[in-house]
């Protein structure tokens, strides 16, 4: 059985339409006798038979358009004598692949003496990485750009963390202490490192004998953090707020609240509420850099950093500006619970416009948060600490004080607006008391 295919009638033609069959099934056909008329974009042509025999099947009907090479009919051959030699596709398949253009330079393994790519050397220089400490995953164990970036991330996690807190080190990615940040080579220019003789050397890190494998979530966090630090020039500022009145108020109502709502009323919802109201007053804080413009968000969706044992999630409280303190408390409680049980949906992790980070939960009193890129700013709420404070003209009192730390994308925001915003948050927090409605 021989087959007749749709011919390629023209260099750019990819398909043809069967115009008319000139033979019917059962007709005898001679070699070169026209079988059918085929119409393409370029020509109308007769398709001749390549065989002597009987037309057995018509597989493409008149008017049908099929691709070049499609079998359109079969012919029962009268013997095998008339078959012409055909250059089959199979023969073509057997051809060795052209590799003249790919040279073999990359198949040569690296020399025993380590050589590094320009990108790797630049990164190592900028981040003060001892490349001999980096495990290479490239060809022949070559240290790749990605290896260096991952190494830098690992080192940041490992550095400056006390052994007992090492277990939770990976959850602190956002709320890193200022001192650590300065020692964090990827993030600080060389000039900032002058005089930092006490900085841990790369070799110190190697004393942690255990190499912790990097999970996909860890990778995602690392990439996100590096992107933020690369893209957004961070500026940092802090205010201290007297929340004595807030503490008293919350102490007074928390029992009743728990009884009524079934979950705890923490301090965080109060902070979020004041942040949200201040964002409405300073919309530029609720924005993002978009290369040729700044995108100012109308809605306020608060990203809330929630640490779990081995990762960090930042679920979103959508339309936080429509919620009361109690509403926010409910959302915080719900998201935190679901984050820890791994039940957040992907949609709940996207779309935030400003991030609040509760570093106070770790006992921190000062932190330098990394912006949750591409947002414009992040605010961390530190531990509330009772300490002596000068009040009025000349007296000292024991007050409940808290530090609010703010990192901003300096491309969008300057110190003035950051200060205005923090002042607004501070005033609102200090005004909370018995008159405040939580519903």
């Amino acid at each position, binding site marked *: 059985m021989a087959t007749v295919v749709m011919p390629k009638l023209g260099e750019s033609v*990819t398909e043809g339409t069967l115009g008319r069959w000139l033979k019917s099934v059962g007709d005898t056909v001679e070699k070169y006798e026209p079988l059918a008329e085929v119409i393409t974009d370029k020509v109308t042509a007769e398709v001749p038979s390549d065989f002597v025999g009987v037309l057995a099947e018509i597989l493409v009907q008149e008017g049908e358009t099929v691709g070049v090479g499609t079998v359109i009919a079969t012919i029962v051959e009268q013997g095998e004598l008339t078959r012409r030699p055909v*250059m089959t596709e199979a023969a073509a398949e057997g051809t060795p692949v052209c590799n003249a253009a790919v040279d073999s330079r990359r198949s040569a393994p690296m020399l025993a003496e380590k050589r590094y790519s320009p990108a790797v050397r630049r990164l190592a220089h900028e981040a003060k990485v001892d490349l001999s400490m980096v495990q290479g995953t490239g060809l022949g164990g070559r240290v790749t750009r990605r290896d260096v970036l991952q190494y830098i991330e690992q080192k940041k996690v490992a550095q400056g963390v006390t052994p007992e807190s090492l277990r939770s080190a990976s959850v602190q990615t956002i709320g890193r202490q200022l001192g650590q940040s300065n020692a964090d080579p990827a993030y600080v220019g060389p000039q900032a490192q002058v005089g930092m003789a006490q900085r841990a050397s790369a070799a110190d890190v190697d004393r942690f004998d255990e190499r912790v494998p990097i999970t996909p979530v860890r990778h995602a966090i690392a990439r996100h953090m590096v992107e933020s630090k690369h893209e957004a020039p961070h500026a940092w500022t802090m205010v201290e707020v007297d929340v004595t009145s807030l503490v008293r108020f919350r102490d007074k109502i928390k029992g009743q609240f728990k009884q009524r709502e079934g979950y705890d009323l923490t301090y965080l919802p109060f902070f979020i509420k004041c942040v949200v109201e201040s964002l409405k007053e300073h919309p530029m804080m609720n924005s993002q850099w978009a290369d040729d413009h700044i995108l100012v968000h109308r809605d306020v969706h608060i990203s809330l950093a929630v640490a779990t044992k081995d990762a960090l999630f930042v679920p979103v409280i959508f339309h936080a500006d429509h919620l009361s303190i109690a509403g926010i408390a409910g959302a915080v409680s719900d998201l935190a619970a679901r984050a820890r049980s791994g039940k957040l949906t992907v949609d709940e992790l996207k779309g935030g416009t400003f991030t609040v980070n509760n570093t106070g939960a770790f006992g921190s009193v000062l932190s330098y948060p990394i912006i949750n890129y591409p947002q414009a700013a992040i605010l961390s709420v530190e531990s509330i600490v009772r300490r002596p404070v000068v009040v009025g003209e000349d007296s000292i009192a024991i007050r409940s004080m808290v530090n609010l730390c703010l990192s901003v994308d300096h491309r969008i925001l300057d110190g003035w607006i950051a200060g205005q915003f923090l002042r607004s948050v501070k005033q609102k927090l200090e005004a909370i008391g018995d008159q405040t409605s939580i519903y």
Partner: protein
Amino acid sequence: MSVKLYIDAITDAMRQEMERDPAVFILGEDVGVRGGVFRTTQGLIDQFGEERVMDTPLAESAIVGVAVGAAAYGMRPIAEIQFADFILPAVNQIISEAAKLRYRSNNDWQCPLVIRAPFGGGVHGALYHSQSLEALFYHIPGLKVVIPSTAYDAKGLLISAIRDPDPVIYFEHKGMYRLIKDEVPDDDYVVPIGKAAVRRDGTDITVITYGLMSHYTLTAAEELAKEGISAHVLDLRSILPLDKEAILEAVRKTGKVLIVHEDNKTGGVGAEVSAIIAEEALFELDAPIARLGGPEIPAMPFSPPLEKFYMLNPDKIAKAMRELAAF
């Protein structure tokens, strides 16, 4: 907006520009009643007449030379070279005349000319119906050279070329005429000359390419994605001028670059792109710049296994991409 074939987008651009501007006309071999050997000018003679869709004698230097004169005297000619391979007799007119007219007359004369030339292989065209000749022209200041890879770009770049005050060589890939289709606006719009397009976002390796190879590269990239390799793909679209910023940006994405073109490697567009990267982005590089092109033989042979040996395909490209990713 409708889905159109690459070839129809080209015809659309010419028709709309001829409707808009009476100075626009087409000249070339078989462009009239035959509508072009590939049918790119089909129907235009009926709408615009035989003077504006002019069949010329079989003489490429005259086609371009006459077009240069007409362009200098207020017209906007579109000179069709039937196959890019046949542009060589017209090279003196292109390089000595069209490219230099404005410069040598100190801006007194100009040459707003489009030269359309179907190029590329894989169509059983053999040595003289398959060549990629862009490297001959991307070296010549005074010319612009574009190579669209989508129907959208085919129309938008051709409209840009026709409206451009300087000579533009517009290479259209024969293999894409009826293979590629995508959404094309019905109205007129332009794709700016000199702007590359990111066709795929990726993090592991960067592939810089153009023409039919853009499609092959995207196919290869999908294959590699299944293996966990994420490829960033930049389609140059314009060869002259090159979009330097886009090239450097694409390099910065991954630090590993492969340049792919159908043309042979030596002295090809990839050589210039490599040089730009080496000059301006050395410290972004995490691997030697890699190039993949046709073999160093004079042109594409006819017999299927020979042609297949010459032509790149998604598999060959995927192989080179894998090697780069592994580096």
